[in-house]
């Protein structure tokens, strides 16, 4: 699709002058105006554009917030209150940024689940998919460090718990984990030094993220978009030009998403946060119940599912290390999805068994999220272990096996057939 030629012809002298030197308008015209998009895309395909909007909104609001913020353990909490109270419309910018992080994750999770359902990870889109996993990891790192910046109790203790995960490496090589953790902290505990470097990285990573997003879009424009039927573009009638067709749809999706976004910004700005983060960080007082932001809860549940034993299997001193490996593994396993899935059919629409597995997996993620918000005790640990097993089983067992045993439903011959019914292709 990158070979897709651009019919751009500059009309003005200025345009011609540019085009001979840097044909960026030609490229934009080819890739974002004429670019063929499958005509059967549904609204789930608007989330790419929505995510782009989220990224830009986070960077713009973040840059403004950084103008008023002070990354120091004595000033950070006051700086947030200063922004909320004294900066003109500071409350709005801050709400946009804090709520924006959650909206970014809502959108990215929908985007990922769409990819899983319609098989967007499969050949030839493996690199596109893996770049997406890299983006997810960068988002997580950025969001985690961003949550530390208000320097409330959850900021501090969340940072303490999560950075301490690396100390699990002590069981691999004595002292290694501790050394890494102290290196991350810049001291012997989370402190103002840690806050300062987290602020630096929180400002840096979104630009790294933007770079990977550009690669992601590039890869997308090489392979072209997947679609609800999981079919390749075969004939001109299978696609429509990106503009005005896909763009018109993208704008509807974006504005509908903004309704949700604005609802939280203006009416529920603190709903997605934790009240404890309005108490200034205090290294001497541990909150009774440390929880991360909602978008980390499923992973947090997986981490904490590894207690002294896992479903009756004693783990001894390796429990923490296993938990950490499982937590990071739960994201990294996505990288292997293109090769774990043995089915040649992409879309779950035509995969009767995989469709079930997908919904079980989706429920599992929600259940893990719920369990992650509860204390790790009693029956909750048991269920977290069960759902952790199902989580990994989806990738490691269901994906390879279902592809081998399942009989897919007959696929339409083309996207045009899928949209207009067979036989319509000739007319279209």
């Amino acid at each position, binding site marked *: 699709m990158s070979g897709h030629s651009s019919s751009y012809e500059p009309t003005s002298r200025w345009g011609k002058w540019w085009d001979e030197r840097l044909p960026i308008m030609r490229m934009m015209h080819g890739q974002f105006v004429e670019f063929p998009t499958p005509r059967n895309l549904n609204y789930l395909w608007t989330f790419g554009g929505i995510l782009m909007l989220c990224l830009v909104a986070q960077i713009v609001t973040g840059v403004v917030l950084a103008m008023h913020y002070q990354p120091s353990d004595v000033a950070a909490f006051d700086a947030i209150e200063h922004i909320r109270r004294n900066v003109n419309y500071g409350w709005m910018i801050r709400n946009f940024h804090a709520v924006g992080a959650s909206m970014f994750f809502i959108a990215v999770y929908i985007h990922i689940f769409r990819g899983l359902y319609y098989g967007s990870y499969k050949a030839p889109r493996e690199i596109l998919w893996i770049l997406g996993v890299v983006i997810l990891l960068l988002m997580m790192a950025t969001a985690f460090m961003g949550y530390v910046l208000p320097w409330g109790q959850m900021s501090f203790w969340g940072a303490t718990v999560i950075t301490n995960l690396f100390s699990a490496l002590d069981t691999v090589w004595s002292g290694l984990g501790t050394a890494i953790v102290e290196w991350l902290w810049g001291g012997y505990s989370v402190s103002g030094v840690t806050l300062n470097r987290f602020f630096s990285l929180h400002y840096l990573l979104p630009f790294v993220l933007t770079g990977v997003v550009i690669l992601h879009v590039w890869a997308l424009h090489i392979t072209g978009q997947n679609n609800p039927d999981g079919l390749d573009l075969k004939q001109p009638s299978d696609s429509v030009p990106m503009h005005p067709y896909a763009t018109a749809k993208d704008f509807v999706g974006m504005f509908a998403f903004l*309704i949700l976004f*604005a609802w939280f910004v*203006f009416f529920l700005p603190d709903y997605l946060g934790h009240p404890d983060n309005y108490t200034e960080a205090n290294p001497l007082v541990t909150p009774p119940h440390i929880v991360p932001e909602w978008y980390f809860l499923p992973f947090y549940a997986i981490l904490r599912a590894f207690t002294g034993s896992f479903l009756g299997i004693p783990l001894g001193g390796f429990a923490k290390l296993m938990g950490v490996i499982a937590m990071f593994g739960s994201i990294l396993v996505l990288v292997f999805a293109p090769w774990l899935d043995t089915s040649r059919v992409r879309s779950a629409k035509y995969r009767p068994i995989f469709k079930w597995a997908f919904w079980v997996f989706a429920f599992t993620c929600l259940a893990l999220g719920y369990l992650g918000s509860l204390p790790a005790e009693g029956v909750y640990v048991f269920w977290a272990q069960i759902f952790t097993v199902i989580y990994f089983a989806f990738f490691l067992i269901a994906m390879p096996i279902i592809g081998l045993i399942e009989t897919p439903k007959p696929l339409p011959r083309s996207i045009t057939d899928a949209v207009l019914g067979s036989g319509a292709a000739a007319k279209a």
Partner: protein
Amino acid sequence: MKNLISLSAASLLALSALTGASGAAETAAAHHEIVRQPWSFAGFKGQFDRAQLQRGFQVYKEVCAACHGLKRVYFRNLAEPGGPVFPEEAVRELAASWPNQIPEMNDQGEIAGKGGELFKRPAKLSDPILGPYLNDRQARAAQNGALPPDLSVIAKARGVHREVHWAIHPFLMLGDILQGYQEGGPDYLYALLTGYTEPPADVTVGEGMSFNTAFPGHQLAMPPPLSDGSITYQDGTKPTVDNYARDVSAFLAWAADPSLDQRKRIGWVVMLYLLVTTVLLYFGKRRIWSKLH
């Protein structure tokens, strides 16, 4: 070593089981659901009631301010729109007569006199509303070891935790989101201020502590601050603990979120704009796509 670890793990488990059990007994003894109150500023429609904020400030000034500061709120805020909106001149006088003055350097750049006492000046409109203590240590020394927290963001720093069945949880969440429920803080504060009772027979209250149904753990160093008739309202509102608690909780909700009124008003316009634009874009999209079919 391994035995030791498993032993300590076992004892930890036993301990947590014990505390869990005693916690359950405790809640059974004094179970007190924190009830949602009909705040004027509740939900996506609500706005602050100016008269209530004025009464609430009076309660803060006459009762709470004896121990608690409000250091992130400035005197000028009391005269700004969206709050109690006292006349500016009255606030200026209030600031000048506020007992807790503003520490300031003298002309020689010294912060304290020969005896170590800080130089201070009367507050102005642009100054924060300070509590009686210079720092946490002084507060603890005066309060028998307990620390009266600053109340500027207390209404945001507290919430209500609901124990519900997992299957109901998503629906309650959705209900809260649709209503725009964000009043857990004031609900809790109201429950706390009206939650002082005699302890159940099986509970021994520590020395200097008070029993409170809403406070986590139920034993609180703050003695009951309000009593019927202790404050005289100017506007004829009944001088009851219930009203004092309600008004001061509303005031603290404003102190923690002084832009609430403006935020929601802008929010309505934004929602209207987004809804209309989304509908227009949708029909535009349909029109564009109709050429294809």
